[in-house]
Structure formats: structure tokens, C-alpha cells
């Protein structure tokens, strides 16, 4: 059981990281972005592309310390993140911004995001094919901790990176002028405009942040498991559940929701087969929608 709790925290960290962008966009633009999961896949594959590219440089083609992957992957985070952020902003400009301008119903954006999701996944199938991919076929070192906990060294990296990213974004939203304006926008978009805040500019910031976090989540999930074209699409379910559990637009809620989802999914494997993990996410989501539809930290 202690082992399952540790695995739950690892999975929960990735879910928490991925769900922040989803709840931020939902809070600010009322769009429930179905393409969020496929943006995650795209981010993970972009990192694969750059890691392969960088591995031609000799000194990058060496194992990154005790981890299973090479320095080339560590460096690949940067271009993968930048391209994903740009992609997220461009998709918003082309697809969702015109809908906001025309005051389309949020269902229209929701359906458009399904289209974006399919386009992204299709592209990934075309470029990389349907096979599983690994960042490096390296052996995964195990740590043997007390209480019979076996932890992969990679998982320490995953937790370290995800919680640093979460902390950085949290501080940004709490302290930075732009961060405060993003919260103001999520709170009351009409008043933000009346106060002179350029809302479209702020929405672009939000997409950038969402792209940043979901790419990190995607790469970390790729390190933890493997790369598949549907990885993000399937991962969307726990992300959804975490966001609904946390409440629309609530960052703290998404973090708590992500951890709860990760723990619940892993602990359930003590009694249920691991294939039932998505069902656990579904059950939690349904229970929240029945008993507390605005989520634990929700406002509306």
C-alpha cells in the first residue's frame, strides 16, 4: 500500500500539472478544451523529435546522470515547450478568437476543440506512425526505499520537475502583475475590459501558460510510460476529472484534484485490475457532478 501511495503521487503530479492549463482556459474563456490532451501528445512527440536531433551532438548523447534518458532529452524540453506554446497561441488566434469575437456559444468552441484534437492526433499518426516510442531504450534504475517501496529514479525527476513548474506558475499567478490580471479575467471578464485590460492579450498569455505546462506534463508522462499517439487523448479523462473536482478556473482545486485522482487511480489497483483506472476517474467525476457540481474549490 505505501508503494501505491507513492505511485499515486507520481501520477497525481503529472495530472495536476496537466490540469492547470485546462482549468485556466476554462475559467477565462469558458472553453472546455478537448484538444488539451492531444496538445500533450504533440508536446511529448516534439520533445522526441528534438531529442533525436540533439543526440547527433556527441556530448548530449550520454545518459543524464542516474536517469534512463539522455541529456539530449533534457535539452529538448526547451524547443518542445516553445513550439507548443506558440502552437497553442496560434490555434487560439485562428480557431477560438473569431468565435469569441462573434460571441459564439461555448458549445461551438467545445466542438471546434474536438476538431483541433483530431487534427493534431492525425498529424502525429502521419509523422510518427502508430507504434510505441521511447525516449531512450535505456534501463530504468530502481531505488529501494524503506517499507518495500520500489521507486524508479526517473520518478524523482518527474516529481521534481512537475512540482517546480507548478510552484513557479502558482507564484506567477499570485504575485506577478500579469498573473493577477489573469485571475481578474477569470473572475470577471467584463470588468477586466472595463478596467482597460486588453483581454485578448491576456487570453494569449493563458494559452501560452497552458501550452507550457501541458508539454512538460506530456514529456514527463512519456518518460514514465511510453509515447503513443493516443496517450494524451486517454489522459484527458483524469485531467477532466481533476478539473471538475477542483472547480472551474480554480488552480488550487486542479492541483488538489490532480493528486486525488492520481492516488485514487493507483490505490484502486490494490483491488482492481489496472485496466479499470480510467473507470475510477469516471466514477469520481460522476460523483462530483452529482454531489458538488461546482467542485471542491469552485465558485460557480
Amino acid at each position, binding site marked *: 500500500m505505501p508503494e501505491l501511495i507513492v505511485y499515486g503521487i507520481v501520477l497525481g503530479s503529472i495530472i495536476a500539472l496537466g490540469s492547470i492549463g485546462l482549468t485556466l482556459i476554462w475559467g477565462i474563456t469558458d472553453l472546455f478544451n478537448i484538444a488539451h490532451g492531444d496538445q500533450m501528445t504533440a508536446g511529448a512527440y516534439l520533445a522526441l523529435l528534438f531529442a533525436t536531433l540533439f543526440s547527433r551532438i556527441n556530448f548530449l548523447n550520454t545518459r543524464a546522470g542516474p536517469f534512463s534518458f539522455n541529456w539530449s532529452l533534457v535539452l529538448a524540453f526547451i524547443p518542445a515547450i516553445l513550439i507548443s506554446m506558440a502552437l497553442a497561441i496560434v490555434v487560439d488566434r485562428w480557431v477560438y478568437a473569431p468565435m469569441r469575437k462573434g460571441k459564439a456559444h461555448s458549445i461551438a468552441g467545445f466542438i471546434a476543440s474536438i476538431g483541433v484534437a483530431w487534427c493534431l492526433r492525425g498529424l502525429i499518426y502521419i509523422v510518427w506512425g502508430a507504434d510505441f516510442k521511447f525516449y531512450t531504450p535505456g534501463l530504468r534504475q530502481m531505488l529501494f526505499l524503506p517499507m518495500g517501496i520500489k521507486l524508479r529514479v526517473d520518478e524523482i525527476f518527474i516529481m521534481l520537475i512537475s512540482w517546480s513548474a507548478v510552484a513557479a506558475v502558482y507564484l506567477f499567478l499570485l504575485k506577478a502583475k500579469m498573473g493577477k490580471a489573469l*485571475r481578474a479575467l477569470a473572475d*470577471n471578464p467584463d470588468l477586466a*475590459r472595463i478596467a482597460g485590460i486588453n483581454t485578448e492579450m491576456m487570453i494569449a498569455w493563458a494559452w501560452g501558460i497552458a501550452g507550457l505546462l501541458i508539454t512538460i506534463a506530456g514529456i514527463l508522462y512519456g518518460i514514465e510510460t511510453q509515447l503513443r499517439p493516443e496517450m494524451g487523448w486517454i489522459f484527458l479523462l483524469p485531467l477532466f476529472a481533476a478539473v471538475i473536482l477542483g472547480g472551474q478556473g480554480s488552480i488550487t482545486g486542479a492541483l488538489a484534484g490532480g493528486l486525488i485522482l492520481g492516488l485514487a487511480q493507483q490505490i484502486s489497483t490494490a483491488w482492481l485490475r489496472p485496466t479499470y483506472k480510467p473507470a475510477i476517474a469516471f466514477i469520481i467525476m460522476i460523483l462530483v457532478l452529482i454531489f458538488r457540481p461546482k467542485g471542491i474549490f469552485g*465558485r460557480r
Partner: protein
Amino acid sequence: MSFLKVENVTSGYGSMEVLHNVSLEVNQGEIVSLLGPNGAGKTTLLRNIFGVISPWEGKIYFKEKDISGTPPEKVARMGMCYVPQENNIFPSLTVQENLEMGAFIREDDWQPRVKEVYELFPDLTDRRRSRAGDLSGGMRQMLAIGRALMLNPEMLLLDEPSTGLAPLLVDHIFEKIKQLNSQGVTIFLVEQNAQALQCSAKSYILEGGEKKAEGRAEELMKDEEIGKLYLGR
């Protein structure tokens, strides 16, 4: 010189016409009020002035410049600020953060202005770290006005600042409005409360989207028919 001028404005939502050919004028340094029952189109008129929606016909001038259809984020930069009647604060932000957001587009140092706003509304000072959503109705209204003052506006549009407040607080808010005006802020005050007449130089009465009367406040107050029909007497 007319500071704000609304000229034959017709506007509405979707295919529903709410305002029919409304004209009015506010001179610099005045408090001008607009009274009328619920659904008269008062808020719609304010939203037109501030560019939240655009007039279908007619023009709006601010400082002699045509601002019809100019979006709110631009109007806010021209020296006019707007306090809506509802949802006029950022509930999950603190009082201090609300004021900071009021100053978002300022590039100079806005700290002295925060101090001035706290001096105008001393009650807010003790609550500066509280979530704005936890404030009482009166405090919210003060915060909403304070937020708008952060840009040092030359003109303030207020939408029913006294609605839902206890009589004592209503007096207090009107006092503050007069105080602001004496500091040189031109005020366009939309109200249902006839008390607004007492502090304004000129008033307009709007009903069913049409201007029914205009004139100096004391004349309107004397007029029996207007008193009965629109001022609840």
C-alpha cells in the same frame, strides 16, 4: 463646453431596440443624473457610452471626440471610467489586488493613488487583504468606485451606486460622490433613487428607452406629474 454628449442614440440587443433616439449632455465639472424605472434603458445607455455595446444610430462624443463604438479598453485610457451596477468587483482577488487591477494600464507609479483611495474610503483600509467577495454590499460599492478611481478619471459613470444599500449607507455614498465632484471629477450618475436629484446640477428622466424630461434638478422635483410618475411620490 460639453464634456460628454450623447446625440440621437438608438441601440439595443439582438433585434430588440431598447433606446430610442436619446440625446443628452454633461458639462465639465457637473454632476448630471439620469433617473428612470427598471428597464428604462439606463444601463444600456451607459454601456453604449463606454463602448461595451455600440449604438445602432447616433453619436457619442467625449471631450469633443467621437467615441461611438470605441471599445471599453480604449475608452478607459481616455479619462473616463465606468462602475457597473452589478459584478463590479473581482470577487476572488483581495481588496488591494482589486485596486491594483484598476491601475493595470497605468505605467506611472500608482501607489500614491491607492493611498488616496484608502483615504477617501477609510473602511477599505482595514480590509485590504480580505477577499473582495467577502465584503458587505456597501464596502463592495466603495471598492467598485475605488477601483474606477485608480486611473484618475476626469469623468465617472456610476450605475445605481445606491441600489441595495441601507439608507444610512446611501447617504454616505452620495456624500462621497459629492466629495469626488468637488475634487473636479465630472459625474454621470444613473439612479432610481430620487435623492440623486438633490446632488445633481441637471437631470434627465428616461422611460421605455425614451427621454421623458430634462431640466435643472429643483425644477424636476417641483413638477408634480414627474414626481408622481418617475420619482415615486
